[in-house]
């Protein structure tokens, strides 16, 4: 009997100790969630620092595909023709309103000179990439917080943390995400975050031969982008979805909206 008693009491001791440890840890980690809540409560430095966006003058875009090609090089995007961070589409509209969209290999190899088709009334190129939405649906649906909006308004992916569920790929109305076949994580345009933070332009903008594409800080009244938006009649893609995209197009035709 005695033996059993000591056993019980020592077990109780153990429980007490572990209980104390647990309590201590609970207190320590109570600080963690508070930190998260604080961050959620709106300490996002929207008004203070940079708030990046992109602009494209479609009148100047010649559909050479340099941006799409440079993006693949700069960001090690897989060569297969269905992985793109940045790509170019050509819209062709016939007289009776039929819209045809082409994007052979995302425009990486350029567009072949089309055979003259008298049916086609107008045609235009649209370079596309992540719109870096201020209310991005991809960030909203990510189950683990691997996709986020950086303090300067760039939508990024935490590759080391992404589980690759692909939910963000469905959620993106602009089809700018894909699952990386090697990393097995979601992958997308980062606005060349590694370049802009060092003061360089993103690769696509660096190589654009006509200067059709620009980027800039929307909080800086003197930035190229803010001037561009003021001077041109800019629209965004799918404005009715209210995702607040920050990719501004000048002279966007109604067929593409």
């Amino acid at each position, binding site marked *: 009997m005695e033996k059993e008693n000591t056993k019980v009491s020592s077990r109780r001791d153990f429980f007490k100790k572990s209980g104390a440890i647990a309590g201590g840890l609970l207190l320590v980690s109570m600080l963690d969630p508070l930190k998260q809540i604080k961050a959620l409560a709106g300490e996002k430095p929207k008004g203070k620092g940079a708030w990046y966006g992109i602009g494209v003058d479609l009148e100047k875009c010649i559909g050479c595909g340099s941006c799409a090609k440079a993006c693949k090089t700069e960001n090690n995007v897989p060569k297969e023709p269905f992985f793109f961070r940045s790509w170019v589409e050509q819209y062709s509209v016939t007289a009776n309103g039929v819209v045809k969209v082409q994007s052979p290999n995302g425009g990486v190899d350029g567009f072949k000179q089309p055979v003259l088709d008298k049916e086609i009334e107008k045609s235009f190129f649209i370079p596309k990439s992540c719109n870096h939405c201020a209310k991005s649906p991809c960030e909203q649906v990510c189950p*683990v917080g691997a996709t986020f909006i950086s303090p300067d308004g760039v939508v990024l992916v935490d590759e080391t943390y*992404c589980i690759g569920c692909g939910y963000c790929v469905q959620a993106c109305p*602009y*089809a700018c995400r894909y699952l990386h076949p090697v990393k097995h994580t979601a992958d997308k345009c980062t606005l060349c975050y590694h370049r802009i933070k060092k003061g360089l332009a993103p690769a696509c903008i660096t190589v654009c031969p006509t200067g059709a594409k620009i980027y800039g800080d929307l909080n800086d009244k003197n930035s190229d982008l803010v001037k561009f938006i003021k001077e041109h009649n800019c629209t965004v893609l799918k404005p009715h979805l209210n995702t607040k995209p920050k990719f501004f197009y000048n002279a966007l035709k109604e067929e593409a909206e």
Partner: protein
Amino acid sequence: MNFLRFILGCFKIIFSGSRVYFAWLFFLLMMIIWGGSGYLNQLENGLIVTNMRDSVSWAFYIGNFTFLVGVAAAAVMLVIPAYIYDWKPIKEIVIFGEILAVCAVIMCISFIVVDIGNPQKFWHMLPGIGTMNWPASILTWDFFVLSTYFLVNLTVATYLLYCYFYKKHYNKSIVIPLVLFSIPMAVGIHTVTAFLYNALPARPFWNSALLAPRFLASAFCSGPAILIILFQILRKTTKFEIKDEAIFKIAELMVYAMFINLFFTIAELFKEFYSHTEHLLYWKYLYFGIGKNTELVVYAWSSIIMSIIAFVIFLVPKTRYNFFTLNLGAILIYSSVYIEKGITLIIPGFTPDTLGQIYVFVPSSTEIHTAVMIFSLGFLLFTFIVKIAIEIIFEGYSIDSLKIKKTKQYIDEKELTSINN
């Protein structure tokens, strides 16, 4: 200690049985190995070995997932008449519905795990130790409700079996609240699964408020359909008992569900086709095809036709009370819902894609292998638990059987030694 003995008893039940039983186990095991080879390939090379691409980024796996969530939810539907109306003939078999729910949820979660690129990081989604993006992401909600539902049903099923095993009366104050809790949970898991799709304004095909109600209605058709067939098989092959009355009652309840399901489908079709907005494109692709791309038309129509035939069969009392037509109807509605929740739900959500292109998705052999693996695993688990339940409930296997065997063994040994001496 008592619980360990219960587990021991369960293992004894699992590892004894007829030749047919072991042949069935062997067959399932072979299917698991065959399917597993496909999944190993996917683990090695990533999701690129599936036919899911940028345009169609969720497909076969998620279709099966959605269907099985429906099965899991509807399996508990039997609980409603059993406990709320105190309908005795069903009460004994409610536990089988719960077992089906448990197995279906396991299959669901397996389908999510195989559908993600980095399964080893799955724990990032767990509450607390991971960094669940709750409440923003519906996927975390879905995972959360599925886990809770799984735990509730597992607890109830295990507890009931445990009590039967020890020939005790179960404690009503534990079981009843849990069972009642599992009813809104059953509705919850399917609603949240519907919200998973519903929450994406980027995919207009899914962005309809009717999606969740339709999910529930169709689930309450397919889940009981499985049970009706299953109970008949069990009744023939084991000592499992169920009265015809109970089966017909389930069928009667299914009629309501089938009517509501058809009604919702018609309501949705009317809204889409009459208003004729740009979102009609996906419905057009589904029911009529776009240009030469008519891949889904056969499935879409066959699903609707099967659903109507099944409804008529179940509605007319003459055919409802006839086991041949009843089973035919059950199979038809099951197939109809499997198509509706799989291929015709997922694919039109992506097709035509945002570029207006049509990517024709056909599951790759890896996907079929993996799905076979998961289904076989689920069936294996279900076979085990059902066998345990039948032996404990209907064949009187209990703690005494364990003891008797032991004493018998003891006597045998004694006899042996005495003979030797």
